[in-house]
């Protein structure tokens, strides 16, 4: 293994077809960021439409061209924008970008391995991801427009091109892109699981693993078990669309013609989709929770409170996430008794989630909190996790769901609990591990400006949406001017749009800070946050194989911060236990 360090590399093997987990993690991050910008711009565009429905705006015609003749957005492109915004954010940014970046960067480092179990599969995983991004972006430019049946692509809308223009070539490309994405995610996931299970260094027992590794491991397991189901759902949909089968279609009349499909059921798709779709929520969320567990402990200078309870709650959430998918379908005509079962399992998830929140707060309690931008984003995550998680009690309760299903209440709920929490976790991760990636520090002050701007705009955008939803405003409405009962919601919509656009603009600070710091940031010391985990024992120069000599052995858990009787307020995992010292956890 040690010959890795002397390996000569050319431009292609170093930056493009790299097998090195550190480089692949950067590739995932940058790709995810580019996709994130696209999706964010889309949200700004449709928020302009929602704040001033039907009014002419030259920004719209600049970005959308013939889709916004005279500066007025067409309903078709509005639906495409919300569809692609959702798809990109959920899959490309918060699944590919988040797991891809941090599982690649942190798993080998934190378990003490020279690289992933299979560097080649890892490279393939990135390039499938890249290809799926390219296909998705190409779909934005086709004649009939990108996919527009919502990110959940329920058939028959997604299956019958006559029903909506985005259901033509755009939808085909969406499905191709998603298939490539699933392949990427499976290749990555298997690799992550094998790496954690097989490549842990001497002394790194499962109960000494940092919570980041636990979270990423469980995420990978969720992905490997659930993504194949989405793949099958997508394949059956491709069959229905292109080869005349009737898995999801029956008794359909469009444009005066009865389609030949008979005997299928569109609800089947929803079952298959949400069998992935719900675990997907935790595929997005768990890595963020794992990153912040590490960041909060490090910057509180205190062990994470209830390490085993944290692992237990991750496992409980992961298990429950597979038996709650029906709560997306209470009003599809599903058997009401089955609905009751899903109410029960869904609300149970509140228990492990509550445990996590209490443990986070207990970790902060009596700490010596170092407010780095990463720490601030982590605290922001705990706050959004509380605020957004609580409204899940309403949506998970079938009787209450009747009234707010598919309204802005849902939009508010999942954007806060999943969108904001996950993106805060991801940003926290970027600030915290930037020195590990690039050997430099990001600028602190810009980080503060970025956090406070983002935090305020995030709440300003999504909190008022609860009220839109309670008033009964359905999501995915191009305009709410068709109903007099929504007339008084205009001012809420304007506030939401103001904060959404301001929040998008604030991200410029982050991007400036990120790219500036790659080249000109303050050089980082080896262990800038005085952290215990293994990645900070490796040299700042990011060498192939991670450690120049032997892989360090591990003697304790990752959370010995401020341990009494020690010289420093941190004790790296590589430090052997002193005589008579107990390993607490």
């Amino acid at each position, binding site marked *: 293994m040690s010959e890795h360090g002397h390996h000569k590399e050319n431009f292609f093997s170093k930056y493009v077809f790299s097998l090195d987990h550190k480089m692949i993690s950067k590739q995932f991050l940058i790709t995810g960021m580019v996709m994130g910008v696209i999706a964010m711009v889309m949200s700004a565009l449709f928020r302009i439409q929602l704040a001033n429905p039907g009014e002419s705006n030259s920004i719209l015609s600049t970005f959308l061209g013939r889709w916004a003749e005279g500066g007025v957005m067409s309903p078709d492109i509005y639906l495409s924008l919300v569809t692609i915004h959702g798809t990109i954010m959920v899959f490309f940014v918060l699944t590919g970008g988040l797991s891809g970046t941090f599982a690649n960067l942190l798993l080998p480092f934190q378990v003490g391995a020279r690289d992933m179990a299979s560097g080649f599969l890892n490279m393939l995983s990135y390039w499938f991801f890249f290809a799926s991004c390219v296909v998705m972006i190409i779909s934005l430019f086709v004649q009939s427009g990108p996919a527009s049946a919502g990110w959940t692509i329920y058939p028959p809308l997604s299956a019958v091109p006559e029903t909506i223009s985005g259901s033509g070539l755009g939808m085909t490309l969406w499905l191709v892109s998603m298939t490539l994405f699933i392949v990427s995610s499976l290749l990555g996931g298997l690799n992550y699981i094998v790496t954690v299970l097989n490549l842990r260094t001497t002394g790194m027992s499962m109960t000494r693993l940092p919570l980041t590794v636990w979270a990423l491991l469980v995420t990978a397991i969720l992905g490997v078990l659930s993504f194949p189901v989405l793949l099958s759902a997508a394949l059956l949909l491709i069959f229905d669309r292109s080869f005349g089968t009737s898995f999801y279609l029956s008794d359909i009349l469009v444009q005066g013609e009865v389609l030949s499909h008979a005997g299928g059921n*569109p609800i089947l798709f929803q079952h298959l989709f949400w069998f992935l779709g719900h675990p997907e929520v935790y595929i997005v969320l768990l890595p963020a929770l794992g990153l912040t567990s590490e960041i909060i402990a490090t910057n509180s200078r205190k062990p994470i409170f209830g390490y*085993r309870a944290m692992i237990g709650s991750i496992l409980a959430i992961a298990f429950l996430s597979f038996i709650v998918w029906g709560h997306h379908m209470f009003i599809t005509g599903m058997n009401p008794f089955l609905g009751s079962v899903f109410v029960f399992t869904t609300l149970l998830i509140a228990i492990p989630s509550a445990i996590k929140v209490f443990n986070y707060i207990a970790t902060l309690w009596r700490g010596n909190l170092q407010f780095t931008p990463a720490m601030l984003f982590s605290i922001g995550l705990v706050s959004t996790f*509380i605020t957004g998680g609580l409204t899940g009690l309403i949506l998970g309760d079938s009787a209450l769901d009747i009234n707010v299903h598919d309204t802005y209440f849902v939009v508010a709920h999942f954007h806060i609990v999943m969108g904001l929490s996950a993106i805060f976790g991801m940003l926290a991760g970027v600030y915290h591990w930037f020195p590990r990636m690039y050997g430099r520090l990001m600028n602190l002050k810009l980080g503060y400006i970025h956090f406070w701007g983002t935090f305020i705009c995030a709440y300003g955008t999504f909190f008022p949406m609860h009220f839109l939803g*309670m008033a009964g405003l*359905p999501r995915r409405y*191009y*305009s709410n001017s068709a109903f007099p009962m929504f007339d008084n919601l205009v001012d809420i919509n304007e506030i939401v749009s103001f904060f959404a656009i301001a929040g998008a603009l604030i991200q410029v600070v982050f991007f400036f800070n990120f790219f500036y710091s790659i080249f000109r940031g303050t050089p980082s010391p080896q262990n800038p946050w005085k952290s215990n985990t293994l990645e900070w024992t490796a040299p700042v120069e990011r060498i192939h194989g991670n450690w120049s000599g032997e892989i360090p052995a591990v003697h304790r858990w990752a959370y010995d911060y401020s341990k009494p009787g020690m010289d420093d307020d941190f004790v790296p995992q590589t430090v052997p236990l002193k005589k008579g010292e107990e390993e607490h956890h």
Partner: protein
Amino acid sequence: MIKVLIVLVAIVFVAQVVRIFELSNLITKTKNEVSDRSNHINGVLLLLSGIGLLAFFFWQRAEWMDETLQVAASEHGPIIDNLWDTTMGLIIVVFLILTPMLFGIAFFYRGKEDKKASYITHNNKLEFFWTAIPAVVLMALISYGLVVWGKIVNQDISDAMVIEIYAKQFSWTARYAGDDNKLGRADVRFVGGKNELGVISQKTKENQISAIEKKIINLNLDLKSSENPAEKKLITKKIDKLEKQKKTLITYFITTPMDKLLSAEDDVVTKELHLPVGKKVLFKFRSQDVIHSAYLPHFRVQMNCVPGTTTQFAFTPTITTVDMKKELNDESFEYVMLCNKICGNAHYNMQMKVIVETEEEYNAWMETQNNTRISNL
């Protein structure tokens, strides 16, 4: 040319920003790391943002609360609303406890150079405590929720008035079951002409078959007069298709039991939904193209309309439109049914007016709908 200029200006702009940024870093000479001062400032900001979040929450409630949550106008509405209030109350209490706790603790324990954190790894008693309490509260909430759910889905529907709600891009149609309170059979293959919902009856069969036969006769004439072989082929194809369609219609007709055919006769198809107050109705939902969702926020009713299957929802409206206008002090108020499942580009404007009225008014209105009775089509 202008675009090139804009790009150049943008590049210069970014370069200048970088320079100013670097110069300002030189001048202030702050080290790029966390200090007591930055911890203090951010700690205070966290405290303020916690207070700000609560203030924002209360401001929104004060500002928007009475504009939201539509007044419940169905029998099960208040039952749902009670569950809503209980759950919402619980949520708000927890939010109001945890948010100040989080931001307060973050402020209180903000880092100082000479301070040391406590080494506390875990506390099993606490863990048990904060697992058990949410578990107990949730069990209560789940039980309450399921009781309410049961009341909504397990209603006695034996004497409910049956109305079909039919969805298509982008409009709603209602079909009243008539005097026998039984809907006749319907199928998308029967949709045509005036028979918008594809109801199968003696009358609709005759209408449609005669329409098809007329078309076939016309096509046969075209076929005779046509010289062009390609055109002839096309016309023959069309005729074959119509013949096939005719066969399908007859097959569906003869496989429909007699009582179904009879119960279709008195069905009434309308574009407005009139409901007698205080009478239980059973909605049967169908869709002809994509999934729609019938959403009646005032009645706390929502159900998907799925092509290929029928779904249902029973409820009893309790407040007439007239009374609601008075209660809200809004002359222009109308109940409405919205589509709440993305269904195409005019999804945002798929609606049907709903009118709740007294039994007499309802009966009087029904009298006027005679021309849309299936037997009169």
